């Protein structure tokens, strides 16, 4: 039965490739429909099982960290590509990487799944360990309310066979029940740098009850992060940018420790040094001699943290806001972000450029231009000055900007 599905899936894959549709989820859809047990049959054979990473912010980078840390230890890691985090996307990725004879040559699957898809995944496939990062306001038009999102994470935890790695400092995550809960956290001095959703507007800090943490981010100065692992402090110079990535790395370290308990955690910490940011998350491009950095912002907490980390007077700023389905149709979240620290914005762009400009007006931040068209905006932006540039961008605007930049279709 499985071999038949592989043949069928690969056939569909070849056919859709011929039609120029390489990254299609169609093979996954066909196999999902014809053999619903396929995904479980394949994944349950993996010797180190399946790891699921979910939460509102930081999934992509954290998945990349976990995959690379485990790869460095010699494991062969299967992971899903960004944007294919439906069950059928995972199946498509399996079809692509499995041999015709049914050999799926991997040690472990490390999967990034958003909250709703992770619950669907847990109904058809095993979850050995999970890492739940945070619950923040994101795409409320899809999930309804953040308490509902927390319930989805609870379901993921309930479906997890071994360890559930939980963010101790997010009150909606730390109270999640698990067979084997294990926490990552912050030192009390760092706590105020990382507002949870409830604290975003009021800027107060609520210390979660004192649960013991497996890994704590103790100190963060510039790019030097100090993690406390089993009462031992280890420092590392991170290539990853952004304090939230340094914190999510604590979750990644905890998860790696659960998967490979015999490896000294110091090894994992040392290996963190080489890991780079993920696609569109702090990537730097050079356009005509000017550095342009893309910073993905999907929701108010990510945007606020990005502003706290990436605003100075050495850069010029552009903000690109789209409201396509993948960005969330509702742009009211922009009003839950405080923009007052921005010196000024050179250009607002994307479908909702004017909403952004309006938001800046009410925070007293100058916005020099409004240009909905991303290609036009980018042209204007890179020619304003020789200063390095930063673009805060929503998801679909980021994809378009990346295409414009890497395709050089711009000039």
């Amino acid at each position, binding site marked *: 039965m499985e071999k038949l599905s592989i043949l069928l899936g690969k056939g569909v894959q070849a056919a859709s490739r011929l039609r120029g549709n390489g990254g299609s989820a169609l093979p996954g859809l066909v196999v999902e429909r014809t053999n619903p047990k396929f995904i479980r049959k394949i994944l349950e054979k993996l010797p180190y099982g399946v790891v699921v990473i979910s939460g509102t912010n930081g999934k992509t980078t954290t998945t990349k960290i976990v995959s690379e840390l485990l790869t460095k230890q010699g494991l062969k890691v299967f992971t899903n590509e960004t944007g294919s985090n439906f069950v059928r996307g995972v199946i498509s990725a399996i079809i692509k990487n499995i041999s015709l004879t049914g050999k799926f040559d991997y040690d472990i699957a490390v999967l990034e799944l958003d909250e709703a898809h992770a619950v669907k995944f847990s109904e058809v496939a095993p979850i050995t360990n999970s890492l739940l990062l945070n619950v923040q*306001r994101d795409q*409320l*038009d899809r999930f*309804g*309310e*953040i*308490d509902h999102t927390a319930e989805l994470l609870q379901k993921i935890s309930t479906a997890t066979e071994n360890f559930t790695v939980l963010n101790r400092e997010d009150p909606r995550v730390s109270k999640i029940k698990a067979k084997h809960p294990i926490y990552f956290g912050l030192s009390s001095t760092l706590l105020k740098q990382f507002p949870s959703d409830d604290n975003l*507007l*009021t800027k107060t800090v609520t210390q979660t009850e004192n649960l013991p943490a497996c890994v704590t981010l103790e100190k963060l100065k510039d790019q030097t992060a100090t993690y406390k692992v089993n009462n031992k402090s280890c420092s590392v110079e991170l290539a990853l940018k952004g304090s939230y990535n340094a914190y999510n790395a604590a979750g990644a370290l905890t998860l790696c420790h659960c998967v490979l308990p015999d490896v000294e955690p110091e090894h994992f910490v040392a290996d963190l040094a080489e890991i780079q940011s993920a696609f569109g998350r702090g990537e730097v491009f050079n356009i005509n001699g000017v550095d342009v950095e893309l910073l993905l912002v999907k929701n108010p907490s990510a945007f606020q943290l990005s502003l706290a980390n990436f605003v100075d007077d050495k850069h010029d700023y552009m903000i690109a806001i789209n*409201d396509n389905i993948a960005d969330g*149709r*509702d*742009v*009211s*979240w*922009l*009003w*839950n972000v405080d923009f007052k620290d921005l010196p000024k914005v050179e250009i607002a762009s994307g*479908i*909702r450029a*004017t*909403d952004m*400009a*309006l*938001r800046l*007006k*009410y*925070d007293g931040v100058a916005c020099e231009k*409004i240009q909905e068209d991303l290609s036009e905006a980018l042209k204007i932006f890179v020619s304003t000055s020789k200063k390095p540039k930063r673009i805060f961008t929503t998801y679909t605007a980021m994809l378009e900007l990346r295409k414009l930049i890497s395709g050089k279709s711009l000039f």
Partner: protein
Amino acid sequence: MSLTILHLYPKEMNLYGDHGNVLALKKRCEWRKIRTKVIEYEPGDPLPKDFDIIFGGGGQDSGQSKIEQDLLRIAPEMKARIEDGTPALLICGLYQLFGKYFETAEGKRINGANILPLATVAGPKRLIGNIKISTSSFGDVVGYENHSGLTKISKNANAFGTVVTGAGNNGEDLTEGIFYKNCIGTYLHGPILPKNPRVADFLITKALERKTGKKYTLDRLNDRIELRAHNVAATRPR
């Protein structure tokens, strides 16, 4: 001149950027040299005596349950003020709770403040998406709705507007919100005031008129960006 805005339950009822409405009121006053003060009122606080505009936003179910009791406590004073013509803007959750009751999916009735002639019953699915309504006082008004409650306003009451695209009060009778004395209740997030500045200016004008006892015409502002954002929102798909 100075106006005081009473912001009800900002901690529990602040979903979907609703506090942007308070910012819009503040800025539009400041730009006209009218000073403002915002009082953030939380459950258990003493209710201030002097305020000129009432604002309340939407919240999650858990947030609403935290403020219900307190709202009943301050209901008599709120009722007196709204009957007396104090301008007010109530969005989503507090719009519902200023009505007679909210009936949950399980049939449990949560008492509202019983100030506005309306009642709400939990519906089978959330009504979510961009919405445009047409109003007699403010022209077209745009926003974003996200609610599962279905609200019926009383036969004699005036709706805030008529649905052009979207669901509105209940997805059936084409009414959206309520316009009662100088109180506007609505499901429109967005937030509503920045992109619909005429609604903001109405609240400010009424507050000034009540305070000074004479007719008031606000200085005109340059609303070019406001109106452009309004027009973009009006063309977006549901």
